[in-house]
C-alpha cells in the first residue's frame, strides 16, 4: 500500500514497488500453505479492480469513470466497451506469478457481470457472449497452461441486482464457450446477494461448480442431490468478526449431507479485499482449519 501510494506521488520508485509486491505475494503464499489450503491464489494483489488488467490487455480506452462496487466503499473504473471487441493482445498481469504453488486458481469476472458493469452501446447479451469468446477464453486457456486447475468466475451482479429470465440462455451460451474442452474446473460464484431464487437456473449452467454467498443465502434453499460442485462461501469477507470454527464446520457438514454436491469447496463468500490484511489472514487460517476438520469428519 505504502509503495503504490508513494509511487503515485513520485516518492517511491518502481523497483521498490516491485519488491513490495514480491514480498506481499510471498507472505500470502506462505499463509495459504500454512493454512493447508488446497488451491493457491495470487490474491490478485496487482489488480486495482477485477476488470483493469483485462481492459488493459484489450487495448480498450483507458477507463475513467469511477463506479461504486456494489454496496461497498470500493470503486472500479468502468470499462469502456463500445464497438467491436478486439482480442486480448497480451497476458501481462493476468496470470498468477510463477512463485504461486500449483494447483492454482485463476479468478476472473464472469462474462455476465463484465457485460453489465461496462459502459457500452452494444446489446449486453451479445457483448457477454463476445467477452466470453474473445476475451475471457484466451485468458482462461493461458491460465490453464500456466497451472491453474480451478477457474473462478466472480458474479456479484446476479446476487446483488438479479438477472432477467431472458438472460439465462445467453449466459449459458457464454459459459459454454468457456467450458467447452476446458481442462480445469470452472466455477461460477454468485455473491453479494441471495442465490436462493436462482438455484434452479444456476444448476443448469454449463460449469463444474456453483458458488454461493452463505452470508446472504439460506443453506436450506440450496436443494439437494447436486450434480455439480458447490463453492460454499462460509467465511464473511466483509466482516471483521472471525467465524466460529464449530459453526463453520457444522454448516459444511450440513451442506455435504443435504446438498450432496459432487465436490464441496469451502471458501469466503466474496473477495477478501474488503478486509485489512491482518483480518484477512485470520480468515484464511480459519478457512483452512475448518476445511481440515471437515475432511477429518468425512474420512471417519
Amino acid at each position, binding site marked *: *500500500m505504502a509503495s503504490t501510494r508513494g*509511487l503515485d*506521488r513520485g516518492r517511491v520508485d518502481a523497483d521498490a514497488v516491485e519488491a513490495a509486491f514480491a514480498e506481499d505475494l510471498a507472505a500470502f503464499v506462505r499463509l495459504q500453505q500454512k493454512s493447508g489450503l488446497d488451491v493457491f491464489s495470487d490474491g490478485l494483489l496487482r489488480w486495482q479492480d477485477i476488470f483493469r488488467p483485462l481492459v488493459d490487455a484489450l487495448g480498450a480506452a483507458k477507463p475513467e*469513470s*469511477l463506479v461504486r462496487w456494489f454496496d461497498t*466503499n*470500493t470503486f472500479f*473504473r468502468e470499462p469502456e466497451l463500445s464497438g467491436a471487441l478486439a482480442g486480448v493482445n497480451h497476458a501481462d498481469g493476468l496470470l498468477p506469478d510463477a512463485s504461486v504453488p500449483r494447483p492454482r486458481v485463476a479468478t476472473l469476472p464472469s462474462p455476465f457481470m463484465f457485460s453489465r458493469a461496462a459502459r457500452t452501446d452494444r446489446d449486453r447479451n451479445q457483448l457477454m457472449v463476445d467477452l466470453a469468446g474473445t476475451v475471457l477464453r484466451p485468458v482462461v486457456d493461458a491460465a490453464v497452461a500456466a497451472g491453474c486447475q480451478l477457474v473462478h468466475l466472480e458474479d456479484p451482479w446476479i446476487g446483488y441486482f438479479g438477472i432477467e429470465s431472458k438472460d439465462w440462455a445467453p449466459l449459458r451460451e457464454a459459459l459454454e464457450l468457456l467450458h467447452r474442452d476446458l481442462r480445469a474446473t470452472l466455477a461460477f460464484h454468485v455473491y453479494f446477494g441471495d442465490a436462493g431464487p436462482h438455484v434452479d437456473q444456476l444448476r443448469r449452467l454449463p460449469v463444474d461448480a456453483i458458488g454461493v454467498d452463505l452470508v446472504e443465502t*439460506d443453506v436450506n434453499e440450496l436443494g439437494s442431490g447436486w450434480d455439480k460442485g458447490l463453492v460454499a462461501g462460509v467465511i464473511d469477507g466483509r466482516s471483521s468478526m472471525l467465524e466460529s470454527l464449530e459453526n463453520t464446520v457444522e454448516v459444511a457438514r450440513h451442506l455435504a449431507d443435504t446438498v450432496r454436491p459432487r465436490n464441496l469447496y469451502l471458501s469466503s463468500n466474496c473477495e477478501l479485499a474488503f478486509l485489512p490484511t491482518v483480518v484477512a489472514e485470520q480468515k484464511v487460517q480459519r478457512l483452512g482449519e475448518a476445511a481440515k476438520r471437515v475432511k477429518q469428519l468425512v474420512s471417519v
Partner: protein
Amino acid sequence: MSVDLDHKPLLTHEIGSLDKPGWRVKAYAGQPLSDRDLEEARAWGERLKVPDYERLIDLLRHAPFSKEQKSDLQRWSSLYALKLEEGAGLDVVYDGEQQRTEMYDWAVSHSDGFERRGSVRAFDNKYYTKAAVVAPISLRTPFHNAEFSYLVSVADAELKIPVTGAYTIADWSFDERYDVDTDLREPAADRRRKRKAARRDFVLEIARNLIRPNLMALIGLGARWIQVDEPGASTEPDELDLFVDSFNASVEGLNAMFSTHLCFSDYNLFFPAIERMSQCRQFAVGFANYDSRELGTTDQARPGYHVIKKFADLPYKPALGLGVLDIHSDFIESPELVRDRVLYAVNVFGDPARIHVTPDCGLRTRSWEVAFKKLRNMTAGVALARQELGLKDPAR
C-alpha cells in the same frame, strides 16, 4: 457569514480535502526533507502570497521537529491550503483538511468505542483505514475545534467546515458490537433482519453521541456553515431512510446552516428519502465524473446532470452544490465547460440563487498544481456564466 448565504447565486466553494504537501508529510513523519521539498514550500508560498512564508522555510531547515513544531507545521499547511482556495477565487473556503489524518480515521480516532483494524483499498492505489466499533460510542474531545479556531484567525473568505457524517462513519466501520451473531445455520431472513436492526442502532448512536456534540462544539465557537459529508450515504439503497434519520438526529434544532455532500452514487436512489431532510440547506453533489467533456447546455450535451431536476423539485428548496470538476482525473476542465454545466443547471432550476458551484468531491487525489488549475478554471467558468446570465459579480 449571513444566514442567507444559501441564496447567494453561483457561490463557489471546495468540498473538503486537498493533498498534503510533501514537506508537511515528511516533516510530520520525521523523514528527511529534500531541497525539492523546501523549494515546493517556497514556490507555493510566493505564488499564493502566504504571509511570512519565509518563516516556514526557516522552520523546515531545523529538523528534527518537536511535537509543538509539528503542530506549527500542520497550521502552516492549513494556511497554505486556505490561501490556495482563496487564491483560486473561491467564495467559501476551508483548509483542505490539512490537520486531519483522513476524513474517517480522524473522526473515529477522536472517539471512544472504536478500535483500528487496518487499511483497505478504496480505488486505484488509494486506501483508507477501517476501525471496528467495539464499545459504547462517545465523543472523546471535540475534534475540529482547534483547526476551526485557527482558520477563523487567518481566513479572509467565509468558512465552511466539513464534518464526516454518522451514516458514512458506520458504513465504513466494521461492526463488532451490535451485530455479532454469525451463525450461518440460522435462516438467512432472520440474520438479515437482525443485521438491519443492529445497523440502525449503530448509525443513530454515532449521530447522537458523536456527531451532534461535535457540531454543538463548533457552533459554540462561531461556526455558521457546517457540511456533513456523507459519501457513503447511498451505499445501501434500502437504508436511505436511515441516512436521513441520522442527518436529522445530528442537526435537529441546532442553529447553523447545514449542508451535506454526496458523491459517486446513483443519485436517483436518494429520492424520495431526502424529502425529509428539510434542515439541509444545500446538497453538494458530484456530477462531472459522469458527464461528457463536450461543450453544450442541452440535455444531450450534459448526460451527467439529468438527475438534478429531482433536487430542483425538493419541497424545501435547498441549494444544489453542483459538482463541475472530476476529481479523479488530471483533465483540466475549461472555463467554458464549467460555464455550460452551470448554465444547464441554472436552466433546470430556473433560479441561479439555488446553484452553488463546487468540485465533485475533495481534491486530495490531485496534485496542488492540478487542483489549483481546476479551481481557477472553475471560478473563471462561473464568471462566464454570470456574464451570460447578467448577474453582478458578488461582493465578498
